[in-house]
C-alpha cells in the first residue's frame, strides 16, 4: 500500500501531538515534585512551560484546521485528525490543571499534603495520561479500555479525600482555608484523570469509528 504525502502529514501531526503530550506529562510530574518540596523555582518553570504548551496547542489546532480545509480527509484519516484536535484540547487542559496545583501550593502545609497522599494520586493520573497517549500511538483499544477502568481508582481516591476533608472540617480547630485548598487539589487531579479517560475514549473512536462516551462499561 503506497503512502501519499497526505498520510505523511497525518503522521507528522500525530508526532507533534505525541511531543506535546510528553511536555504535558513532564510538567504534571514536575508540579507534583514542586508540591512535595515546596519548590517555588520549580513552580515558576512549570508556569513557563505551560505558556509553551498553550502556544503549541494553538499551533497544532491551526495545522489540523488547515489540513481539514485543504485535504478534506475521510474515513480513518478524518477520524485521526478529529481525534488529534480533541486530544490536543484535553492535553492543554491537563497542562492548566498542573498550574492550578502549583497555584494552590502556598495555601497548604507540607504535613497536610503528606496526609492526603496527593503525590501517589497525581502519579496515577499521570500514568493514565501516558497510557492514553500510548494507546493513541499504537491504536490500542485494549489499552484505552484499561485507562478508562483506571479512572475509577482515581475517583475512589478523590471521594476518600472529600470524606476526610468534610470530617476534618467538623473539628473545632480545623483550618478551613487549607482544607478547601486540599479539596481543590484533589479535584484538579481527578479532572486530569477524567481528561486521560476522555483521550482513551477518543482512541476507541479512532479505532472503531464508534463514539463510546457516555455508554457506561467497556466498549
Amino acid at each position, binding site marked *: 500500500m*503506497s*503512502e501519499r504525502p497526505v*498520510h505523511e502529514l497525518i503522521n507528522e501531526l500525530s508526532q507533534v501531538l505525541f511531543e506535546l503530550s510528553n511536555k504535558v506529562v513532564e510538567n504534571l510530574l514536575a508540579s507534583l515534585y514542586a508540591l512535595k518540596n515546596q519548590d517555588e523555582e520549580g513552580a515558576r518553570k512549570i508556569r513557563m512551560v505551560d505558556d509553551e504548551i498553550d502556544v503549541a496547542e494553538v499551533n497544532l489546532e491551526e495545522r489540523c484546521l488547515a489540513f481539514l480545509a485543504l485535504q*478534506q*480527509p*475521510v*474515513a480513518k484519516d478524518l*477520524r485521526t485528525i478529529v481525534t488529534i484536535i480533541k486530544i490536543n484540547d484535553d492535553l492543554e487542559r491537563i497542562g492548566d490543571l498542573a498550574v492550578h496545583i502549583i497555584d494552590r501550593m502556598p495555601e497548604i502545609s507540607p504535613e497536610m499534603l503528606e496526609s492526603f497522599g496527593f503525590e501517589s494520586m497525581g502519579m496515577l493520573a499521570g500514568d493514565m495520561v501516558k497510557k492514553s497517549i500510548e494507546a493513541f500511538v499504537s491504536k490500542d483499544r485494549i489499552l484505552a479500555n484499561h485507562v478508562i477502568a483506571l479512572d475509577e481508582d482515581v475517583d475512589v481516591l478523590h471521594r476518600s479525600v472529600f470524606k476526610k476533608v468534610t470530617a476534618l472540617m467538623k473539628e473545632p480547630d480545623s483550618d478551613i482555608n487549607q482544607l478547601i485548598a486540599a479539596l481543590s487539589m484533589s479535584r484538579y487531579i481527578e479532572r486530569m484523570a477524567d481528561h486521560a479517560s476522555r483521550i482513551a475514549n477518543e482512541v476507541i473512536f479512532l479505532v472503531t469509528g464508534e463514539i463510546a462516551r457516555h455508554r457506561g462499561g467497556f466498549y
Partner: protein
Amino acid sequence: MTVDARETSESAQLQKATRDIYLPPERKKITGGDTVHISAKEFSIYYGEFEAVKRVSADILSKYVTAIIGPSGCGKSTFLRAINRMNDLIPSCHTTGALLFDGDDVYGKFTDEVLLRKKVGMVFQKPNPFPKSIFDNIAYGPRLHGVNDKKKLMEIVERSLRKAAIWDEVCDRLDKNALGLSGGQQQRLCVARTLAVEPEVLLLDEPTSALDPKATAKIEDLIQELRGSYTIMIVTHNMQQASRVSDSTMFFYEGVLVEHASTAQLFTNPKDSMTEDYITGRFS
C-alpha cells in the same frame, strides 16, 4: 450455519443497513423513502465473455440519492446504464440474475424499453443538447409520447426548466439554439429535457466532470432540489461530490459491489478495508 444461509443473512444485514439510511440532521428524511425502487439480485453484466459487473445484489431506495464510486473500469457506469437498458446498444452485452424496477424485471421478455426509458431518464458526462431551439429540446420527449397541444407543451417546457433551475436564465430566449448556452446551462437543459417526460428515476453519469466549479455547484444544488421527488443515481469520480450530494453510496471494484452503505457511514467509518483504502487514496 451453511455458506448459503450465511450469505443470505449477510445480504439481509446489508439490506437493513441501506434501508436505515443514517442522515446528518441537516438532511431531511424522505417520506415514503423506505420503499425499494430498484433491486439487483445476483445481477451480472457481460461484454461477450467478460463479466463487467459481478453478481451484484443491492436495493436502491425510492426518492433518495445514491452515489456510485470506484476506480475506472470497475463497472459503475455499466451498472448504471443497465438500469434503463442503454447497454442493449452493445451487441455483445448480456446479463444474468435479475434487475427489478418497481418489482418488474427490467430484462423481462415483455418489458417495453421505450416506456422504461421514459420512467428512467439519463444525463451523460458531456452535455448533449439537440441542435435545436431550447423549447424544442424540452418538447422533444413529450412530443414523442404524443403531446402536441402547444399550450400543454409550453406548460411542460416551463415546468421542466424551472425544476432544472434554468428557467430564469433562458425564459426570454426559448427559440434560440440550445448549443449557444454555456456548458453548465447545457447540462441543466439536459436535466430539464429528462424531467419533461416525468421520469421516476434520474441516472446521472459523471454529470459534472466537464463543468467548472460554479456550474458543478449549480448541478449539485439541483440534485438537492430534486431529491425527494425522484430516485437519483449518480456515478462520480469526485469523492467530495459523492459525500456532498448522496444519501447512500455504492463502492464498486473490478465489477464487484464491495460496500453499499449510508454515505455518512461509508465516508466516516467504512466497513471494508478496500473501501477505506480507495476513499482515503491509499489504493495501490
